[in-house]
């Protein structure tokens, strides 16, 4: 098996695990509501069908350029600043960062590089939506941005055009960083 194929499969399984953890947490807390529990089970089956049969990935594997992924921390830090220091709240902060980022390609319309930035910056903005209970400082945001950037680089042609992909990558970055902080707090 080639390196590309391994990276592709590992990434898909990783994202499936992240989504499974998220759904399992809902399932775990909906013990008193059988309707919601049944809905979650149906949802899981439907998602699995798409994972197995859906054409949601491009055939060829490609990597996002590092200089594109570098904009994730910029989006995250700006969104976090607007959210917590200027008290705009998570929605307004992410939406402001995303809207401004979407106009970057207008600086030079022929630039292929600038066209790729809005998605990376908007992805970072989702990290900045975290509450201070989860992300207490800028160091957490930078660490989560690093993990999200690695995932974005690996997933250029995977889940292409699937809405929520950027948010899932941001969520994965935040979960990994939280886990890391938990480990450091437990053993340091």
């Amino acid at each position: 098996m080639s390196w590309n194929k391994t990276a592709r499969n590992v990434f898909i399984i990783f994202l499936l695990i992240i989504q499974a953890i998220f759904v399992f947490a809902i399932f775990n807390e909906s013990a008193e509501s059988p309707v919601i529990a049944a809905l979650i089970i149906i949802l899981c089956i439907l998602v699995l069908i798409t994972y197995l049969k859906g054409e949601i990935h491009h055939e060829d594997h490609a990597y996002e350029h590092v200089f594109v992924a570098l904009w994730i921390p910029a989006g995250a830090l700006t969104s976090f600043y607007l959210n917590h220091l200027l008290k705009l709240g998570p929605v307004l902060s992410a939406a402001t960062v995303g809207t401004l980022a979407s106009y970057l390609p207008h600086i030079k319309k022929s630039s292929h590089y600038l066209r790729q930035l809005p998605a990376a910056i908007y992805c970072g903005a989702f990290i900045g939506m975290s509450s201070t209970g989860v992300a207490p400082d800028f160091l957490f945001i930078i660490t989560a941005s690093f993990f999200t950037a690695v995932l974005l680089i690996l997933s250029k042609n995977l889940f292409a055009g699937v809405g929520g992909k950027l948010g899932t990558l941001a969520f994965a970055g935040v979960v990994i960083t939280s886990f890391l902080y938990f480990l450091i707090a437990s053993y340091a």
Partner: protein
Amino acid sequence: MHNLLLLITISFLSATITFYVNEELKQGPVRSSALLSLIVGSYFYFFPDTMDPYLVKSIPVVFIGASFVGMVSARLLSSYLLIGIGGILFCIIYLHTSNFFNGYGGALGTSAAISLLAVLSIPIIGKNRKLTNGMIQLRRVLFKPGKKS
């Protein structure tokens, strides 16, 4: 119940309008989601007393989350109804999101991705059913009722 219906309607509209602005007005997925959410978020930020506090807090969050569903590429899904259903599914997941992941950035996007992946299975199931019907027709041709072997 009234609040739930309102949030479900908003999530349906958010997903479909985002898709419309993205695909028909050619604004791209990021601007479609972010700009529409900025308009809705700004309204409730500057006029927080216009509605019930629960709705003032929930509507912008539900709107931006459902707008992620509308960021889907037309290559994968082009039915406004299915995109709207994806938005409704997002709303249901959001309303039952685990307290454990409260405040985690990207949780809305994860809910949106799960909703959309579930909806994307509907055309696949539909396609398989057509094949099954085809197999039934073939079986009828091959084994006509009353045909004795």
